[in-house]
């Protein structure tokens, strides 16, 4: 099915009254996802946002609870407030990132209510990529510039209209309310097929990386890989699947709150014990952790590689430590037999 952008825009504007609608907009130095009221505000032609949209489910800084101390007493208040939201214009890599984060924030014992309250109250409208950046490598990770995994509704831009497809029940529900759905013409169908068959130019081979990494914890490959790394968190903070966080207290006088903030495994303080012992005190072990977590541990725990090939970490690394080269390096590394 397809829908003209005009009709779609009308429905979009109507939905914006009911939902908080987040969409890509142009701002200083790039494209970011921001709350919009009108379809006309939405940036149409963009590669991808500078930062991943994970922050709408997992904000960089969020209050978990607040409290007030009076004498020896304390009253604690849950700070979980959620709005019904539509995330519009999500790229396939980021939508897949949501599916991976779902696996993190829910495990065999716990379910993170802050993440899932937002997740459950959000409809994701994905849009296929038309342009492919040189740092994109999603085709190597089971995705493509037009894969719909993780979206509730998936759109392909056809110029004046969108090819529209409902992926989930939520998507079907929303799509049922849309007016002006039409069938695709033959030419349009051909265009859709072309877009769907597109692949990223940059590729890596991750077919055997998980099993290879099983045997690589003590490999000398890690000895030099990390040297130029600065231990900043530019990669982690711009990654759609990185999810590590810190919990800390913000308090003034007798009132305060407990907040969680993004944290990252690149910082040495991340694992520092109270005793002073630090299991990952070396850059080497932290880089190894980053690779192993994404390409090995995550696979063992959740059945999937925790990388979606969005390329943001490549683009943002101040020293050009390219994860694609690291993957190649792992593939080429000689196993040490002991």
């Amino acid at each position, binding site marked *: 099915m397809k829908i003209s952008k005009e009709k779609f825009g009308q429905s979009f504007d109507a939905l914006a009254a009911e939902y908080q609608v987040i969409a890509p907009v142009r701002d200083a130095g790039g494209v970011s996802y921001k709350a919009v009221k009108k379809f006309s505000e939405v940036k149409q032609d963009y590669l991808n946002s500078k930062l991943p949209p994970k922050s709408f489910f997992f904000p960089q800084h969020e209050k*978990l*609870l607040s*409290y007030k*101390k009076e004498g*020896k*007493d*304390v009253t*604690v208040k*849950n700070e*979980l407030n959620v709005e019904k939201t539509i995330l519009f214009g999500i790229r396939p890599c980021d939508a897949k990132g949501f599916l991976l984060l779902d696996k*993190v*924030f829910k*495990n*065999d*014992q*716990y*379910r*993170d*209510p*802050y993440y899932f309250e937002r997740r459950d109250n959000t409809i994701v409208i994905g849009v296929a990529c038309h342009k492919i950046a040189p740092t994109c490598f999603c085709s190597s990770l089971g995705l493509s510039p037009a894969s719909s995994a993780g979206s509730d509704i998936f759109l392909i831009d056809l110029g004046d209209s969108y090819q529209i497809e409902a992926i989930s029940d939520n998507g079907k529900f929303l799509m049922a309310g849309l007016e002006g759905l039409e069938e695709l013409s033959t030419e349009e169908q051909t265009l859709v097929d072309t877009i769907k068959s597109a692949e990223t130019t940059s590729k890596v081979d991750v077919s055997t990386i998980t099993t290879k990494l099983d045997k690589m*914890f003590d490999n000398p490959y890690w000895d030099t890989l990390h040297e130029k790394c600065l231990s900043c968190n530019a990669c982690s903070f711009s990654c759609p699947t990185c*999810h*590590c*966080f*810190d*919990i*800390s*207290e913000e*308090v003034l006088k*007798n009132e*305060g709150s*407990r907040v*969680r903030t993004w*944290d990252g*495994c690149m910082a040495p303080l*991340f*694992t*520092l*014990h*109270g*005793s002073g*012992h630090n*299991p*990952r005190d070396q850059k080497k*072990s932290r880089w190894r*952790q980053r690779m*192993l*977590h994404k390409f*090995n*541990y*995550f696979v*063992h*725990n959740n059945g999937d590689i925790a990388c979606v090939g969005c390329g943001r970490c490549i683009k943002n690394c101040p020293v050009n430590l390219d994860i694609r080269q690291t993957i190649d390096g792992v593939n080429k590394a000689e196993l040490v037999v002991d």
Partner: protein
Amino acid sequence: MEQNPYIPITMKLIKNLCETEDKLVNTFTLAFLNKEDEENFKYMPGQFAELSAYGHGEAPFGIATSPTEPGIIKFSVAKVGCVSNALHLMEEGTMVGVRGPMGNYYPLEKFKGKNLVIIGGGFAFTTLRSMAVYMLDEKHRADYGDITVIYGARNPGLLLYKEELAEWETNPNINLITTIDKPAEGWNKHVGFIPTIVGEVAPSAVDTYAVVCGPPVMIKYTLPVLEKLGFTPEQIYTSLEMRMKCGLGICGRCNIGPKYVCKDGPVFSMAELKELPSEY
């Protein structure tokens, strides 16, 4: 709404007791405010909880009491950081937050019908105390064979739970061996490092499990002694420490390989640890 695992229950600090002569370890006794909280807080020896000192933060500590001691839970905590400092200074009667119980526990089902050797060093004795008390309970004592506790500290003043230890000395249901690193005045029990004493006591490995908790260096030198005595890695358990924040297996810092110490641990057998990278 579903239960929010980030929201602590409120408990009252009813006793803040200094345990050691260096004044670095205090035992906090916390009382449940209502029956409902207590019923929801079902725990087993070896589990831990996140203790909140509101205004300072939250930190994970092993539970030192046994589920056979109703109404309260205790933590013995060394003063090392911002949360533990605040707890040490806290007046009795203050409300604190507790999230938990978290993590796995000592495999008490597996231990049934077996002898136990419990080896502890310094203030890492907390969850071991929990286990010993649990097994000594009249409802459970018959489930286990001989219980030997080997507990050491640098000097007599640093041993935790001194009154309880004195009681165990005369209790026929438990064989307590205490040791200190160097001879001290008035000390007539063992003198020597834990590994040496374990070698001297030489518990039989037949039908026996060993549980070892203590500083890394103690564990490192005790393991070979146990091996020599015939303990297999499957027969040796330990409880690990890691920096933790969420306690739910999400925040990502306490992992050893694919395992999260907060959720999949803190109790591991040596056999399990051998399968994991040595990053702890």
